[in-house]
């Protein structure tokens, strides 16, 4: 186990430099004008960033308002009995609601809970696993679909949210099973 883990860790450090050096190197071998092609491709970066702005503004301001309105407290109170039935501790509920909505907000929750309960606490392990296991779904949707100007997202939101819900709930069970 330990060797696999350290191998993965080392590999993850090397992947990035290897790709950044490897692509141009391979291009040179294949006689591609690497510098010219790089610049040609990089021109797209600005255009994409500007294209996603309206999508990102739309998503983020709505989420920001929702968080500021205090709706979270109502939701947590309302959901507590339901989640209590399936064995989810109430302390991790804010994380479960915020995770698909905001990355920085849910990172703040992890930090806050570390300060409150200590890194060894099982609650912190639960929220950290939740954080590591899911993406900020609405941000990903805004960026990926925004970049190609897709407005009708069809079943992307429900599929993403179903996957999030399963990840968030199974994080509770898996952590309890491993450390409980």
């Amino acid at each position, binding site marked *: 186990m330990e060797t696999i883990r350290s191998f*993965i860790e080392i*590999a993850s450090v090397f992947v*990035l430099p290897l*790709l950044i050096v490897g*692509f141009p190197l*391979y*291009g040179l071998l*294949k006689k*591609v004008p690497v510098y010219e*092609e*790089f*610049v040609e*491709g*990089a021109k797209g*970066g*600005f255009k994409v*960033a500007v294209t996603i*702005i309206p999508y990102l*503004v739309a*998503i*983020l301001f*709505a989420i*920001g*308002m929702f968080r*500021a309105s*205090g*709706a979270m407290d*109502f939701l947590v109170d309302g959901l507590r009995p339901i989640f209590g039935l399936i064995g989810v501790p109430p302390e991790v509920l804010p994380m479960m609601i915020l995770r698909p909505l905001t990355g920085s907000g849910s*990172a703040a929750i*992890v930090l806050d809970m570390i300060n409150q309960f200590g*890194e060894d606490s099982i609650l912190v*392990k639960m929220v*950290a*696993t939740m*954080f*590591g*296991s*899911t*993406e900020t779904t609405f941000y*990903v*949707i805004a*960026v990926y*679909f925004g*970049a*190609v*100007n*897709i*407005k*009708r*997202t*069809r*079943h992307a939101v*429900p*599929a*993403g949210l*179903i*996957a999030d819900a*399963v*990840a968030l709930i199974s994080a509770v069970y*898996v952590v309890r099973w491993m450390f409980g």
Partner: protein
Amino acid sequence: MLNYIWAGLIILSLVFGIVYDANDLASDTYRNGESYALTVSAAPGADMQSRRIPVTVSVNPEEYRAFYGSTSAPDTSFAGVVIQNQEGLQLRFAEDASLPEPWATIRSQTSERDNDLRGPLEDWDTATGSATVTFSAVRFVKMRAIAAAALSMAELAVELALGLIGVLALWMGLLQIAEKSGLIDSVVRYTQPILRPLFPDIPKGHPAMGMIVLNLTANMLGLGNAATPLGIKAMEELQTLNEDKETATDSMVMLLAMNTASVQIVPPVLLVALMGLQINELIFAIIIVTTISLVVAVVAAKLLGRMQRFRSRPAAVIASSESREG
């Protein structure tokens, strides 16, 4: 779907904000306009004629809780100053003092810039120190917060998007080289058999498959910075196969679902920074959870795509319905 969620977030925040503020008004959470009795004692040897008199403010916790009907336990004494001028006396708590609720909220609403709680001081008996202070009225806390959040998040969105430019340019440049040198084609050739069933509408040998593989790999390795540009590039390739440029295809939704639920062999950098060495214990928990959610995401994307309400409409139908709407 996104239409309803988006509108729902905005409308709900207004509703919750109004309920919250109405509740504040009804229960008079901040005791607007009422004066609060406390003890203000000047620092020993302070010049009582000077413009700024350093003082210590003492608060009786029981009286505080009874007055505000709150459960917070305030410190019994706070540092502060009394400012004297023609208009009278004003008590100012020290900047950034740790205040109990609801004082903390009153401070954040009434003294945003200086972050010191302040109010006119009356009936100050310098011998015993007894005095009363009245803070400015606080109303509609959540309404203000909602408006401020909408504006600041709009700003943040642009910052985030513009912050991506550099990394996007770097990766799109590298990918251009990879494409021209035939590297993407070989990635496609080797991974096609595995991923083909998930993305049936991508033609054999199309570069979209290569970009998808690179994106998913970067995601697995916790390289968020690289995964986003690769994902965007994959979306661009998928868009070239799309007949209706404003509606997502099955493959796009599948890519998105796999991204939001991607298996994480290496946890994201941010989490490592937050958790320190403790993260080692969690790696396997994260791998198990993400594997479960990946399976669910793939199944959900496949099944939901077949449902009538999520069907992609053929171009002809869209054209006719749009002309009707217009």
